[in-house]
């Protein structure tokens, strides 16, 4: 019995030491972001930029990476509007905007359009950004919130704010993006449906449509094996057909069933038509 008591006392004491460590360290509580209704009609430019500042350090979680520790450019340390224009002019820029506001918005929803040197994903040679899309989960800022953050970023360096205040009529609330939820995906039933669903005909000649942007798919079954066709869809950048631009996107929403349907269909496409 004495043995048991000594063992228990020792164990409990050790446990309490560990617990004690949690007591002496700084205490922080991480609140979940609140889904606030923004009264759009009552917004002034000042309160709008203030909202942007709050989002920058709060729900947007920007400061998690954009800080002095070197994981992402420290946006508070330089004039973002000025630098935005330099970046647009850079040869490595892949996007389509023309002004600073557009660049700031694009860098939030399509961050890989321009990756600052040294900050790209390992092995991607600064072509892929590790930054998530801010308009998608888990951060999922609404259009209004993104605009607020841009307003804040433009304002903080003394630059003019070019974002318009959101208007009330038909305007989305801070939850707007959430309410306009994307429709649930419907699985394509046939390879033709799948090809239409994923928009292949936008760039490839297939199914009665002609397009010069990408290789002709009407005879792809003669040129590529099943494995090569599958690879072109799963990893479009792996092998680029000669003479064509490397712009084929990924299809993260494509299911295995749809993929196999398309692949089998394409493999059967040999040039029997014109």
């Amino acid at each position: 019995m004495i043995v048991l008591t000594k063992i228990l006392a020792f164990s409990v004491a050790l446990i309490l030491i560990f617990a004690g460590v949690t007591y002496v360290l700084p205490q922080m509580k991480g609140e979940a972001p609140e889904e606030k209704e923004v009264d759009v009609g009552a917004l002034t430019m000042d309160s709008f930029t203030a909202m942007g500042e709050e989002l920058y350090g709060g729900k947007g979680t920007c400061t998690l990476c954009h800080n002095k520790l070197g994981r992402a450019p420290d946006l508070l340390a330089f004039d973002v509007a000025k630098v935005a224009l330099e970046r647009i002019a850079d040869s490595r820029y892949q996007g389509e905007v023309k002004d600073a506001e557009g660049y700031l918005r694009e860098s939030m929803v399509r961050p890989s359009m321009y990756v600052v040197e040294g900050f790209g994903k390992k092995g991607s040679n600064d072509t892929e950004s590790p930054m998530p899309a801010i308009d998608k989960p888990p951060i999922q800022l609404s259009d209004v919130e993104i605009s607020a953050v841009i307003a804040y970023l433009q304002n903080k360096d003394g630059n003019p704010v070019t974002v318009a205040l959101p208007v009330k009529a038909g305007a989305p609330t801070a939850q707007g993006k959430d309410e306009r939820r994307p429709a649930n995906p419907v699985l394509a039933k046939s390879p033709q449906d799948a090809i239409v669903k994923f928009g292949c005909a936008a760039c490839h000649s297939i199914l009665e449509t002609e397009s010069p942007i990408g290789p002709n798919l009407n005879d792809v079954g003669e040129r590529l094996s099943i494995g090569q066709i599958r690879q072109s869809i799963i990893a479009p950048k792996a092998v680029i057909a000669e003479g064509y631009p490397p712009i084929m996107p990924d299809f993260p929403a494509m299911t295995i069933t749809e993929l196999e349907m398309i692949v089998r269909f394409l493999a059967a496409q040999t040039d029997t038509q014109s």
Partner: protein
Amino acid sequence: MNWLAYCPVPSTWCRALIAVLVVAIGLSAGEFVTDASAASHGAEQQIASVGSDEVTDESTSLRPAARPKRSDYPSIGVSSRGVVWAIAQLHLFFGALVLAVPIFVLVIELIGFKTNDDRYDDMAHEFMKVSLTAYAITALFGGALALSLFLLYPDFMIYMTRVFESQLLIYAVLFFLESMLLYIYYYGWNALRYGNRKWVHLTLGLLLNAVGTTLLVVANSWSTFMMAPSGVDPATGAVTGNIWEIMKGPLWNPLNLHRFLANIAFGGAVVGAYAAFKFLAAQTPAEKAHYDWMGYTSNFTAILAFLPLPFAGYWMMAEVYAYSQQMGILAMGGILAWLFVIQAVLICTILLAGNYYLWTGMARTEGSARYRWLIKYIAVVLVVGFLVWVTPHNVIYSASEIARLGGGNHPVLGPLGIMPAKNIAVFLMLIFTFLSFQLYRRADKVITVSWQHWGNTLMIAIYIVASANVIFAGVYYGYFTNTVYKVGSSVIQVGSTAVVIVSGVVIDTLMFKGAKTLRVSWGKVPDRAQYALFALPVAFTWLMALMGYIRSSVRTHWHVYAVMKDNSPDNFIPTLQTVGNMVTLVTLLFLIFLLFIFWIANLSGTKQVPLATDGKPAPAESAA
């Protein structure tokens, strides 16, 4: 003894029957899974198997994850999160024990079989006794967990059951198999003791471990799906993939490896506590010797499985970062970062306890005297490593403190706060822990091979070069290259540590050929060594709960990350004190249940002496 003589039907039939049973068990699991994946998710199944009162509709779309409002969450008056947290963690503690013990029991049984040493076989049998009682408790907590989840988080559970479907039935079937195999393995121990029957017994143990491991990886898929969902539409959570896409997310195999190894380490530590308890309570020198040896074996198992854990953990965090850099940074650079400082305290306790047990254990043999002088240096490395590891990078300073420091980070200690310094500390601690092992193994031998001088020189050189590599790689990649996440150094550090361990084992095995063995006085070890054996499972348990909390908390306010939001009243990240309280609570509860298990194991071996003829009880109870 010819067991075939007892077979009611001719022997060939018996053999055929056994073969069929074994193959059937092996295939049935595969069959079920194939069936499940064939009847895969996707619109085809949804549309084809939609309820009988619904008409097949071409435009039926896939059902999204629910979006419960706060009022949709049932409330029972106490924090739902707290209830599920405690039950889940206790289930995981006992599940880990029950899965891990048969793994090293099988190995010990094999060793006993090969060396024809009954001690090993008896020890393996004794360990299984502990596991058997724990099994029932695991099941109790598992049932309680399922009930509490369905009660308190119904919308979430509806979604999860929709995602995993028939895989849940497979989980249930596996439990039938596990129970069957566990009982036959334990109760058939003495009936299947020698020769071919022993091989049958070992095969049953092997199957038991296979089923247990399958249970582990199936359950892991639920956790990893919640952290990094795959096979579902990212925007709505609708199931778009088959069960394999759902299970094989980026975090599944890292968690599988990590939990597999950690379970073994944890299981070893717990049975070590059992051995230590029995040692301290032992009355005879023979008993003391037996339990001392058992404690040594347990500690060996625990530390052996513990050594590769940092690599598995590293792989896991690397995959977390690759999946979502945000999640990774939240864990190690954001609000959860302090937890990794606490982790440092726990792991250093584990390493110090494991090492201390080895050092005090050197008292068992007089050959250890020549190595005593090294111990203080190993201790220094461990303590300094701990101090480096526990140094934080950023502390919230007051304005005057910042002025005194001249910046946001301490000029000298600041650099110790980032990953490269901690990598150096950890790998050096692992290398020197292995040194303790090596010294212990050498302590009871006098090496007689002619080339021992060269062998020792080589070994020393390997230690020096490996340590230098670890330090230089860490310093160079950590402080003189410009990426913050210093992946480059780790490969060299891991490699150097692995070289030390592998070469140490190989060189020693060769050097021990023909060595003179000195006497090892099992049982002649100070009592304080046993307290090291208690510190080990206590620290392991507390650490396991802590890391489990981190893994869960990294999802922040999501039930299923980025797919199903958590709108419950508990959807915030709690303070460190709350975490400390919960972890302490579950650890204490586990301790109480564990004592109950040890008591039952003890009780089952106790026989009351018959009463004397005058009705009075005889003087002493005998332990069978």
